[in-house]
């Protein structure tokens, strides 16, 4: 059974009286433990695909299954639970909360799961050690380099031990060396059995995946 399954997914945006389809009948499976890249030009539907895969928005038509569960009829709070427990996000702009330290940022999704602060921080520290930031735990995002911030974001994505890591242009805001470092961390995680879906427009990154799909005009080609 695939961990993610998109079945004839359409996403149509209403722009005034005009309907603009961003995804047109996409069928797409990701198996457990797989490393998949999704590429495409700007406007190809990559971001919409990410939002649908990450349960951040619902399709206009079609079905989305995460770990065999149909998410299309779920309430906002049920979708939040899926995002919290099944998916770990890594964003291009890191999206760390500026008022929180590295360890507090990492612990945040656990706190949403009603885990105590003490236990969440303990787990966050272990993960920061794992991504090589053991000595930067109490630094705020503004005190960290781009590469370090992205590694904090990766640690945050792992904190609830999700099935899937969804990385949106994970190296997009990084220099080559930092980008390589981040990719290595992600690939190491894939090596431990995590499902990794990377959305990118960079060919070299897409080629490192076990399987690649391309989007054009809202369709997989």
């Amino acid at each position: 059974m695939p961990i993610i399954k998109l079945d004839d997914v359409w996403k149509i945006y209403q722009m005034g009286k005009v309907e603009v389809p961003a995804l047109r009948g996409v069928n797409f499976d990701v198996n457990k433990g797989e490393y998949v890249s999704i590429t495409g030009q700007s406007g190809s539907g990559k971001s919409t695909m990410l939002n649908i895969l990450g349960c951040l928005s619902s399709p206009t038509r079609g079905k989305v299954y995460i770990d065999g569960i149909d998410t299309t009829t779920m309430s906002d709070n049920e979708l939040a639970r899926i995002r919290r427990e099944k998916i770990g996000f890594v964003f291009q702009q890191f999206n760390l909360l500026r008022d929180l330290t590295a360890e507090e940022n990492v612990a945040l999704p656990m706190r949403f799961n009603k885990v105590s602060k003490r236990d969440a921080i303990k787990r966050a520290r272990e993960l920061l050690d794992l991504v090589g930031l053991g000595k930067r735990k109490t630094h705020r995002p503004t005190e960290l380099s781009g590469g370090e911030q992205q590694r904090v974001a990766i640690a945050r994505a792992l904190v609830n031990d999700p099935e899937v890591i969804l990385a949106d242009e994970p190296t997009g805001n990084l220099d080559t060396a930092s980008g390589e470092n981040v990719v290595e961390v992600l690939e190491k995680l894939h090596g431990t059995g995590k499902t990794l879906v990377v959305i990118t427009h960079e060919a070299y990154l897409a080629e490192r995946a076990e399987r690649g799909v391309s989007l054009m005009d809202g369709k997989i080609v």
Partner: protein
Amino acid sequence: MIDLTFKQISGHKLRTALTIIGIAVGIGLVIALGAIGEGLKAGMEGAFSGVADVVQVQSSTQEGLSEETIDKIRDIDGVERVIPIATYVSHSDKYSTETGFMGITISGAYFTAVNPEDQDYFIGSEIIAEEGRKLEDDDNGKMVAVVGSKFASDNDIAVGSEIEYDEDVLFEVVGIIEETGSDDTDTSIIVPLETMRELEEEENIRVVVVQVSDVDLVEDVASDIQESIDDVIAFSYISIARGVSEILGAVNLAVMGIGAISAVVAGLMIMVVMIMSVTERQKDLGVMKALGATTTTILKQILEEAVIIGLIGGVTGLLLAFIATIAVSALSGGLLKPIITPGLIALALGFALVLGIGAGLYPAWNASKLDPVETLRL
């Protein structure tokens, strides 16, 4: 996640501090005014507690009250005791007494003339003579006086001293009453009624105080006296107390009005600050939702911030009110004794809580409804 809430609040110290000051001033003002109202009420109750069962009767003419009139008063149902009284001012300018009211000094000496058996009605049966003795039954007709402790100390008077009522008219001080804390007693000169009447050649009594057997009958007795006896004015202290109560009620209404305005202003301040905060943190809130925070989690987080700001404002307001009441008490020379009651404390904190929730709801609702897809694009 209260620690995260405090982090957010402390992240904008100046803005939070200004909001808290605004709320504190509003709440502090209401509580201080309320405490002054409570103090006035308690003071009034204290002042009237000893005379609640009393009707004062005086002549409506220059004639005074004759023995015949006083007998008629005694015969009225509900009357327990009739106490004649008269006050006189010394013609001498040797005396002055500092009062407790903002340190104001009154000049002259005020003589209260009563029958010796009635003196306890004025100074209290528990109050003793600190030096010498109180008036005794056979003092009527003698030139003797007992004085309050403050009058004595301000005018260097001891037992055996003489007080001048008029040129060559001297009263010998036979006792000094212990300090009571009440200006009425501590600055008084009490002399026998018969002595004064003889001195002033008065046939009639100026005023009588009528004690009533049951406090509930006071107003009935006052109106019975007024209706059945000619040329008298009868009034009860209860009716005065009721009048003062009505004034205090109006003051309380005004306080509530000020409170309502403060509530609206403070509520708007919290709301503006929270709307600003939510607008600034839209992206952070969107990230939180993307990471799995539910609508309720976001709603609670923003509401908590508003409530904590409101409560800190409430507690600060209480402290300000406490300081203000001390200042008011000191400035009035102890005349005004504001009281911060548990009810006022509960009101301040309850007010702050409701304010926080009320003002936080709209921004919290807006924050909880943010679309993570939209906010992540920012």
